Structures are given as structure tokens and as C-alpha cells.
């Protein structure tokens, strides 16, 4: 038959024009400030769980037995058609009993998948059947605690279905490969698409049961767009009315929530239906306390206080949809309507969860009044106060009410017996307290929390909440002197007895400290408390601690150390570092930081004294130096130690610390020996350098850098070059002979097992040559203030120079030896470049008036070019340089040299 040609579109045609304009104006899409369903989903699934056994009852073909007699007279064809809608797989009735919650979730997911599969394989009727069967599950309220989660799972399937149908019809509208625009009008939809769409609606209209018919139709609400402009706006109110037929108030409120959800998505401008849902819900509100529901609760053994919160997700959602960008007047009206109803705690809660925080906050006192009036046996009061607290954390109540609000609320909260209820509530209210009140009130609140959570070690079950409380407090008290003067703050921290949690909390506190502490501090309260906190973090480190974690902890502790300053009280500062060292000995980066801090302290002292240490300050800097000297060996990283030895040695040198008995002194001795003889020729700086030299043989071939093994030679080269520069100014030790340190270092380099294939050793020797050359100058290039280097010590003494020359010759012999070994094919290139670099060194540092040296350089020049490995351009440049230099006065001898240096032409 050709029925149903006149659908609502025809009727609505007259109103269409006026409507069109309004639609365009109101076509407001829901903004990002609307919390979407997706974000609620997970929360609901996590909150509404059960340990009871569930069942899925998919009545495949249930109609057959029940309606069998009535339809016996129907023709065979008719009957099969009807059955098709109800049967899933012909005649099968699946009843899955004793499912755990996880099984249930899995089954539903499977159904979702089979829906997609059925759709993909063009079994549209089967797909519809699956959806119908699934939505039927929503009429089942056994294991009622799970109902909200069930709703979430099943409406996911419905959403999938709605999307599939819409997309299919949408794709049918593609004429001549042109795609329908997003805001199409029904006139653009072709007849086939319309007919298919209509068919879906007819099929759904004939679903026997109310709940599946409702849900399935709601799920494809969007498809009304294909049929007529006004389809959705006519459908929504009708579906809203349809919900009235659902007897169970819980089932019905979730049906409304679904309708609002679909409505918000498809037609957010149609507010009337949302409001109607709300007011209809209020009309049926009394049912919750009616006999039918009560009997059901008794049967399932569920108490009212745990039953009522099952409504919250649905109600919160409905309320949220309505209150979104709603005028104040509507909100007020809604609230007034809620107020009028008895047992309205449930409503109040949803009002508070869904309405704008500002709206709630300005009426806080009203709400407190209403909450107080609520029946004790109904909706749990702590949830109400929690909701109110959440609003107050976001928006400010009127200034004048603030204290009263806190008093009133806390009066109730403190009476909560169950620690879990209590802490959930308190957690929220701490934010309000911190935001608007001083440390006195916060202290009171913390004290109260401690009082509640200590008995029976209740805190053990509430670490997340307690943690969150700490976070809120420190977020508002950036001034740590105020924070730690909150008496109960540290006792509060003591509640975190599980180590991992305690460390987490400490880390939070330190992070905030580092972020917000601007000025260095010496406040003993802060220092004590933070030292305690840092110690807690430090003590959590064990063999199993991950590197990252250690790094993080060290970073936090270092942040603290850097912020401690006793101003001019340097001794106090040093004793702080001493204390810190004893506390944080397991974290290498902290020790490194401490050594740097102490070195800095010594230099600071020098600066204050303008380089002239008094007896007292001299003793002090020596104490600093000793601190470093005995701390460095406890470190593991070899280059860390080397560099710190060098660095500390430089600091010691700068402070004229040249009189320590090597290495054996302990800190306390140094403290006692306050006025040590500074004239003595043993030097404390020496001790560092000697220690560094004796450490060099220990440098391994490969070192671990950021988890990768790398050869260490380049690092060693870098360190040694640095070291040489310092050695220039270190005066010789009278008991150890000329250039004692250099010799010792050369021995170590000699004995070190170098990589065969590398020339690092020669490069180092070249650097040694540079050093020796610098040392033979009459006046050195640089000095340390108030330290006599070898130039003034020896005053260009010929014996010293001879010694120096001897050393040079030894080193050069070594280099030449090495160059010889490179006379093999594969090493020729290396030979060439080394030779050239040696040549350059001689050119820069050597006295070429000496015939031997002159001859050597000429030989090297030839060596570099011998095998054609040299870069001609470099050679040309070098030669040009020599010629240029020769024009300088006193450099005339270079002219002659230049003549002896032929350039090889490549053939």
C-alpha cells in the first residue's frame, strides 16, 4: 500500500517559514563549557558497581509463545514479518545467568560488536533486533545498584545504532557524487532515502514493548531531519510524554536522561522538552517513596540511602542540560519547585551538582537551611554537603555569609560518624576554608580531620583524599612560614604512614616550595620542616628506586638547598651544609650540589673579605675546603669526582689554602686547627690536584651516559686540558721538587692504557707541551690573586728552565715515537694530521730560532705532506700565516723557515 505519504512534514509546512528563521537564530551548538556525556561515562561506570551476579535475558522470540493464540489467524506471511522483529536468531532464547559485572560488561561489548557486524553484513533486521533486545534490558531493575552502569553500557549500543542508521540514510542522499551539506533541508533528500527513513520509523513504531520502543526511537531521533524540518521538534515532546508510561521511577528518570542527552546533541535549541522532562519528573517524584519502590527495595535488600544516589547521574545530567545557559529566572523557578516537594534532598543534590556554581554560592545559606531540614533516613547528608562544598570551591558566596557558612557546614560535617563519608566531605570543604580564611581556621579544620581519621587508623583507607587536602592547602598557602606555623600541618603529614604516599606528598610540597619561594630563607621553622620532608624523600631511596625517581627527588632537594641562606652568617650556612650532607648522603646529585654550595660559600667569603682573609675567615674557608675534600670521595661518578676535585682545588687556590696535610685531615680537626700556619709549603689545593691525578688511572674505557655506553677518552681529554690550565699557576711543593704535579700527571698518562686506534694520548702530550711552554715564560699569562706561582717562585731560574726543557724533550720524544708507529698504510692520514698539528704547536709555542726545533718543524711539514694525505688548502693557509708572521719584528727567522717549507702539488 501507499500509506503514510502524508507525514508530519505536510502538516508542518505552513509553520515552516516562520520556523526557519528562528531555527537559524537559535542554531546554537552546545559550547565547550557544556560538560559532555563522555566525561560522565567513566565516572558512572566506576562508581556504580556490584559484586552480585547479573543476568542478561535476551528473549529471542518471546512473543511467539505469548501472543501465539491471538495471532493464530494471521496469514503465514504476516506472522513471519512480525516475528522477524522479535527474533534474534530464530527461536533461540538466550538467558545468561550468574554473570559477574565484568562478564556482563564483556557481553554487552560483544553485543555492540555483533550489532556492527550485522550492520556491516547488511543484516539490518538483525541489527534492529539486537538493539531492541538490548534496550529491553533497561526495563530490568534487578541488582539495582548496577543500573546506572547498565544504562551507560546499553546507551552506548543505542548511540552506535543511531549513528549507523543516520549515516546510512545520509549516504543514500548522495546524488551524483555530491554530498549533502551538514545543514541540509528535507527538500534535498531524495525519495528513496525518505522512504527508507520512514520505514525505520514505522518498524520502530510497531515494537510492542514501551521501553525498547522509546529507546530505539530516541536513538534515531536525528533521522527526523531527513523527513521534515519540524520532525525533531514534534518528536521530542511526544517522546517526553511517552516516558510517563514508565512505571519504575528509576527506569523512567534514566529514560529522560537519555532523551535529554539525545536532545542536547541533536537539537540543543529545543529547551522546552528539557524543561518538560524536568517538570514531569517532579510530578512523579513522589513515586520514589511509594509502596511499589519500597517493596522492591526490601526484596533486594537495598537501603534507601544507597538507593537514592542511584538517581544522581541521571538527574544531574537532566539538570545540567536544562541549566546550561539558562536564564536566572528559570533556575529560580526550578529551585522553588524542588523546594515545595517533600523529601527533596535528592533534588537538592542534583540542583547543586548541575546548576552554575555562582547561582548556588550566592544562596549558600538557603541551601544549608534546606539541607538541615532534610530527612535523616533519606539521601545521605554528607553527599549534600559535599555537593555544596564543590560549588563553593568554584564560586564565592557573599562576603558576609562566609564564616557562617563554614560554621554551619562544619558543624554537620564534624558529626559524621563514618570516616569515609567524613573525609569525602571534608576534602571538598578544605578548599573553601583555604580560599576564604586564615591559617587559624585551616588549623582548626586540619585538627578536626586528624581527630576523625586517627581512630582505628581510618586514614589508611583515605590516602587519596588526604593527599588532595594537602594539595589544596599548599595551593593556597604559598608563604611557607605561614604554612608551617599552622600547628596541625606537620601532625597532619604524620597521618601518611604508607611510605609511597608520604613521599608523594613530600614531593608535592617541595614542588610548590620551589615554584613559589622567591627569596632565600633562614626561617628555622621552614628549615626544620622542609629538612624533615626532604629527609623523608631521601630515606625512601633504596636499591630498587628508579633512576628517574632519584633524579626527581634530588632535583627537589637541591631546589630546597639552593633556597637556604643565612645571609652573612657563613658559619651557620656551612653547618647547615654539614647537616644536609649527613642527611642526604644517598643522593649523589645532592652531594654535588652541596659541594658546589660550599665552594660558593668559600668564594663568597673571599669576596666579603676582598681577598684578604683574616685569621678567622682563613680558618673558615679551610673548613669549607676540607668539607669538599672529604665529601668528593663518597661520590660514584668518576668525572663528577675529577671535575669537582679540580673545581674545589681552584677554589682552594683562590682562597690561598695552601697548607693542609694531604688528605688525612678530617673536618673536625680542621675546625679545631683554626689558625693553621699558612706559610707552610704543603697546600690544600695540592691535595685536590693530587687526588685528581691519582684518580685518572681509574677512568674506565667506557662510561655510561644517559643509559648508553660511550668511550670516555674525549671526556678525559677535555678534563685534562682544563687541568693543565690550572696546573700552570699551582706553585710547586718545596718537598717534592720541580714540577712535581706535572711529572706525576705525565706518569699517570704514560701508564694509562689508551685505545690503540686513537691519538688522544698524543693530543694530550701536545697540550702538555703548551703547558710547559707557558711555564717557561718569565711571567705567566694569568695568576691567582695572592698566590705566588712558579714564575715568581723560581724567578726564571735556569735550573728550573733546564728541568722544564728536559720534560719537553721527553714529551716530544714520545710524540715522535708515536708518529713513527703511524707509518702504516691505514694510519697515514692520522700521521699526517697529527704531524701538522704538532707542527702548528711548535710554530705557536716553540722558539724556532733553535736549529733543532727548526729542523724538526721542517721534517714535520714534509711528514704531513709525504703521503698526499694533507689538505692542500690548510697547508697553503698555514704557509701564508707563517709568511705573515715573519713580517713582525723579532720574527724574521720565520722567513727563512718559510723558504724551507715547500708546498706539494698534487699530481
Amino acid at each position, binding site marked *: *500500500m*501507499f*500509506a*503514510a*505519504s*502524508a*507525514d508530519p512534514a505536510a502538516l508542518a509546512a505552513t509553520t515552516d517559514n516562520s520556523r526557519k528563521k528562528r531555527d537559524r537564530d537559535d542554531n546554537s551548538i552546545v559550547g565547550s563549557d557544556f560538560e559532555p556525556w563522555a566525561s560522565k561515562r567513566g565516572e558512572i561506570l566506576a562508581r556504580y558497581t556490584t559484586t552480585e551476579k547479573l543476568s542478561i535475558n535476551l528473549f529471542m522470540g518471546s512473543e511467539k509463545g505469548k*501472543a501465539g493464540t*491471538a*495471532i493464530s*489467524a*494471521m*496469514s503465514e506471511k*504476516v506472522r513471519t*514479518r512480525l516475528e522477524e522483529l522479535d527474533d534474534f536468531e530464530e527461536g533461540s532464547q538466550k538467558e545468561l545467568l550468574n554473570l559477574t559485572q565484568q562478564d556482563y560488561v564483556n557481553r554487552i561489548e560483544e553485543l555492540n560488536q555483533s550489532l556492527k557486524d550485522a550492520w556491516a553484513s547488511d543484516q539490518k533486521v538483525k541489527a534492529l533486533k539486537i538493539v531492541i533486545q538490548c534496550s529491553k534490558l533497561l*526495563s530490568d531493575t534487578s541488582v539495582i545498584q548496577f543500573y546506572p552502569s547498565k544504562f551507560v553500557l546499553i546507551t552506548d549500543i543505542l548511540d552506535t545504532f543511531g549513528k549507523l542508521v543516520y549515516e546510512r540514510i545520509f549516504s543514500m542522499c548522495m546524488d551524483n557524487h555530491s554530498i549533502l551539506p551538514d545543514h541540509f533541508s528535507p527538500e534535498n533528500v531524495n525519495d528513496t532515502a525518505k522512504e527508507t527513513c520512514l520505514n525505520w520509523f*514505522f518498524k520502530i*513504531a*510497531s515494537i*510492542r*514493548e*514501551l*521501553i525498547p*520502543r522509546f529507546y530505539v526511537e530516541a536513538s534515531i531521533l536525528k533521522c527526523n531531519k531527513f523527513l521534515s524540518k519540524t520532525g525533531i521538534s514534534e518528536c521530542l515532546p*511526544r517522546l517526553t*510524554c*511517552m516516558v*510517563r*508510561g*514508565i*512505571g*519504575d521511577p528509576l*527506569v523512567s528518570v534514566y529514560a529522560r536522561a537519555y532523551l535529554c542527552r539525545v536532545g542536547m546533541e541533536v537539537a540543543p535549541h529545543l529547551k522546552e522538552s528539557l524543561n518538560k522532562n524536568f517538570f*514531569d519528573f517532579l*510530578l*512523579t517524584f*513522589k*513515586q520514589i517513596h*511509594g*509502596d*511499589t519502590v519500597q517493596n522492591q527495595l526490601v526484596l533486594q535488600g537495598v537501603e534507601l540511602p544507597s538507593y537514592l544516589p542511584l538517581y544522581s547521574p541521571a538527574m544531574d545530567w537532566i539538570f545540567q542540560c536544562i541549566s546550561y545557559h539558562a536564564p536566572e529566572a528559570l533556575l529560580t523557578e526550578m529551585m522553588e519547585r524542588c523546594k515545595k516537594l517533600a523529601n527533596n534532598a535528592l533534588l537538592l543534590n542534583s540542583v547543586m551538582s548541575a546548576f552554575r556554581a555562582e547561582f548556588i554560592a550566592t544562596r549558600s545559606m538557603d541551601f544549608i537551611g534546606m539541607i538541615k531540614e532534610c530527612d535523616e533516613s533519606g539521601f545521605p547528608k554528607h553527599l549534600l554537603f559535599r555537593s555544596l562544598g564543590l560549588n563553593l570551591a568554584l564560586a564565592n558566596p557573599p562576603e558576609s555569609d562566609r564564616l557562617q557558612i563554614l560554621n554551619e557546614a562544619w558543624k554537620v560535617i564534624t558529626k559524621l560518624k563514618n570516616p569515609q563519608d567524613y573525609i569525602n566531605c571534608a576534602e571538598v570543604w578544605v578548599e573553601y576554608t583555604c580560599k576564604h580564611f586564615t591559617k587559624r581556621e585551616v588549623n582548626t579544620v586540619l585538627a578536626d580531620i586528624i581527630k576523625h581519621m586517627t581512630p582505628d587508623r581510618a586514614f589508611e583507607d583515605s590516602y587519596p583524599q588526604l593527599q588532595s587536602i594537602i594539595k589544596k592547602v599548599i595551593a593556597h598557602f604559598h608563604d611557607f612560614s605561614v604554612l608551617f606555623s599552622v600547628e596541625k600541618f606537620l601532625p597532619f603529614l604524620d597521618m601518611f604512614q604508607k611510605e609511597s604516599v608520604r613521599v608523594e606528598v613530600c614531593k608535592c610540597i617541595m614542588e610548590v616550595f620551589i615554584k613559589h619561594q622567591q627569596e632565600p630563607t633562614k626561617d628555622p621553622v621552614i628549615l626544620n620542616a622542609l629538612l624533615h620532608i626532604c629527609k623523608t624523600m631521601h630515606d625512601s631511596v633504596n636499591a630498587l628506586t628508579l633512576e628517574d625517581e632519584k633524579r626527581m627527588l634530588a632535583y627537589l632537594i637541591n631546589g630546597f638547598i639552593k633556597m637556604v641562606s643565612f645571609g652573612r652568617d657563613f658559619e651557620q650556612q656551612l653547618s647547615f651544609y654539614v647537616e644536609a650532607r649527613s642527611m642526604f648522603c644517598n643522593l649523589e646529585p645532592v652531594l654535588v650540589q652541596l659541594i658546589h654550595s660550599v665552594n660558593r660559600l668559600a668564594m663568597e667569603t673571599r669576596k666579603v673579605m676582598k681577598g684578604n682573609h683574616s685569621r678567622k675567615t682563613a680558618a673558615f674557608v679551610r673548613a669549607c675546603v676540607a668539607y669538599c675534600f672529604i665529601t668528593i670521595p663518597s661520590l660514584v661518578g668518576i668525572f663528577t669526582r675529577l671535575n669537582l676535585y679540580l673545581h674545589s682545588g681552584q677554589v682552594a687556590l683562590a682562597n690561598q689554602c695552601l697548607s693542609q696535610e694531604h688528605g688525612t685531615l678530617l673536618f673536625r680537626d680542621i675546625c679545631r686547627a683554626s689558625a693553621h700556619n699558612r706559610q707552610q709549603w704543603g697546600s690544600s689545593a695540592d691535595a685536590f690536584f693530587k687526588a685528581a691525578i691519582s684518580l685518572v688511572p681509574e677512568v674506565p674505557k667506557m662510561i655510561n651516559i644517559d643509559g648508553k655506553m660511550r668511550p670516555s677518552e674525549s671526556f678525559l681529554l677535555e678534563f685534562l686540558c682544563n687541568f693543565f690550565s690550572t696546573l700552570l699557576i699551582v706553585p710547586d711543593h718545596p718537598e717534592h721538587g720541580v714540577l712535581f704535579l706535572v711529572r706525576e700527571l705525565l706518569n699517570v698518562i704514560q701508564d694509562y692504557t689508551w685505545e690503540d686506534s686513537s691519538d688522544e694520548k698524543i693530543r694530550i702530550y701536545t697540550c702538555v707541551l703548551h703547558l710547559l711552554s707557558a711555564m717557561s715564560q718569565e711571567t705567566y699569562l694569568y695568576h691567582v690573586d695572592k698566590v705566588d706561582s712558579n714564575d715568581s717562585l723560581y724567578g726564571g731560574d735556569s735550573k728550573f728552565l733546564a728541568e722544564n726543557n728536559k720534560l719537553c724533550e721527553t714529551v716530544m720524544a714520545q710524540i715522535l715515537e708515536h708518529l713513527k708507529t703511524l707509518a702504516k698504510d691505514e694510519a697515514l692520514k692520522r700521521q699526517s694530521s697529527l704531524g701538522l698539528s704538532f707542527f702548528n704547536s711548535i710554530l705557536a709555542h716553540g722558539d724556532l730560532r733553535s736549529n733543532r726545533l727548526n729542523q724538526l718543524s721542517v721534517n714535520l711539514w714534509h711528514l704531513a705532506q709525504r703521503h698526499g694525505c694533507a689538505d692542500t688548502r690548510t697547508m697553503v693557509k698555514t704557509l701564508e700565516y707563517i709568511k705573515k708572521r715573519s713580517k713582525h719584528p723579532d720574527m724574521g727567522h720565520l722567513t727563512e723557515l718559510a723558504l724551507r717549507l715547500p708546498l706539494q702539488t698534487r699530481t
Partner: protein
Amino acid sequence: MLSGVVVVSGKDSVQHQGVSLTVEGTVNLQLSAKSVGVFEAFYNSVKPIQIINSTIEMVKPGKFPSGRTEIPFEFPLHVKGNRVLYETYHGVFVNIQYTLRCDMRRSLLAKDLTKTCEFIVHSAPQKRKLTPSPVAFTVTPETLQNVKERALLPKFLIRGHLNSTNCVITQPLTGELVVESSEAAIKSIELQLVRVETCGCAEGYARDATEIQNIQIADGDVCRGLSVPIYMVFPRLFTCPTLETTNFKVEFEVNIVVLLHPEHLITENFPLKLCRM
């Protein structure tokens, strides 16, 4: 007016004795199995009623060329005597069917060729305005008939109305229902659409009712005093405008069925008049 084309196609040319078209419309009445025993006596009286039967000659005897030949036609539908051209209808006991037959007569040696196809008659929407006929109803234990022990019934009061019992077939049936009070919990409220076909008249008749759709409008113990919408879309395949003739009738009724806990079934019946507009 029925129009279309007759297509003749053949490899070779076709010799024929003329092509004619026949339109036939009949009402077939059939008695349901359960009624057969009782009404066997006048079984013969339910012979098919012809509404229309006319033939036109399309092509005079001759020859069709090879290949495809299309012959367009227009066929006026003139009913027999004072009969009415009913809408096509396929029910269980009543069938109204129209067929078009094309015959090609051929010489004695070759068989005649016949092709038959059904066509559908749909009455033109009536121009007149449908007058709504609202019905209000109240159901209490007292208003019920067929009650064995009225005292055992729980007390209840159900009120409601149908917006109209004269319905346009393409528009849903609408109304409202309010459970004002009920001692017993309500299990379900359903709308049952029933089709009643009646065959034979003067000599006696067979009346058969078939449920063609059942729609639940309330599930569970609905809120007292809150109106529940009555809304039902007429299924396209199983409904037609109400038909009333001397020999047969096709009528529709809706039952409002209220199921109470534990085992009470209350039915309220409303005859409907469907039409196409």
C-alpha cells in the same frame, strides 16, 4: 483509468489472431477454519463477488515484426452495475484483488499466450473534512462486564479519552489515559488494534477478529494522576479504510488493556472508523 504498455518481443516475427486486455476485480470471501462447521450449509453463498470484468481488443489479428514492440494502452475502469471500486485489500478472510490480463490468441497450432499481473487500487483521498469524534471513558470495577466476582476485584479508577475514533489512516491514534487510583499495582497498559472481518450477510454471517498490533503504552506501576499518552501508528500493511458492504465488512477496533497485579485483565473496547484523507 489504467494505463501502461504491452511489450511483445520475439526473435522472429509473430503471427497472431489478436491481442486483448482484460481487467478483473473480485472480492474473495473465505470462512475461517473454526467457522466452517457451523456455516457449512451456505458455503456456496460465499462465492467470489466480481466487481469489474471487462475486456478490450488491443490489436487486430496480424503479425508482429521481429524484435521488441511496445503497445501503449489506456483502460477505463467501469464497474459492474452498482458495485463500488473498493481499495485493494489482502486480509485473512477477505481479499480484494484486481488483476490485468493480456491474452494473445494464436492459430490452432500454437498455444495462446497469457500474462497476468496484479494492480493496486487506492481510493482517492476524500475531500470532505473528517469530523473528530472524541470518546471519553472511565473504567472502574463497577463499569466492567463479564466479571465473576466483583467483590474480589481491587478498587481502581481509570479515566481517559481518545481524541477521535474517526481516524485518518496515515495519522496516529491519539489520546490520554490517567490512572486516578488503583489499589493493585499496575503491570502494563496496552493498546490492541483488532481487525474484524465479516463475511456474508443476508443468510447469516461469519465474523472473525484478528489482532494486528499490540502496543504497550505503560510499563509498570505508573504514577497516579499523571496522564499517559495514547499513541499508536497504524501499521501500513495491515490496515485499510473501514469497509462496509452488503456482503462483507472490514472494520477496526482498539482495545485498551490494563493488566493489574497479580492476574487481572481489564479491557475496554472502542470501534474505530478509518479513512484515507
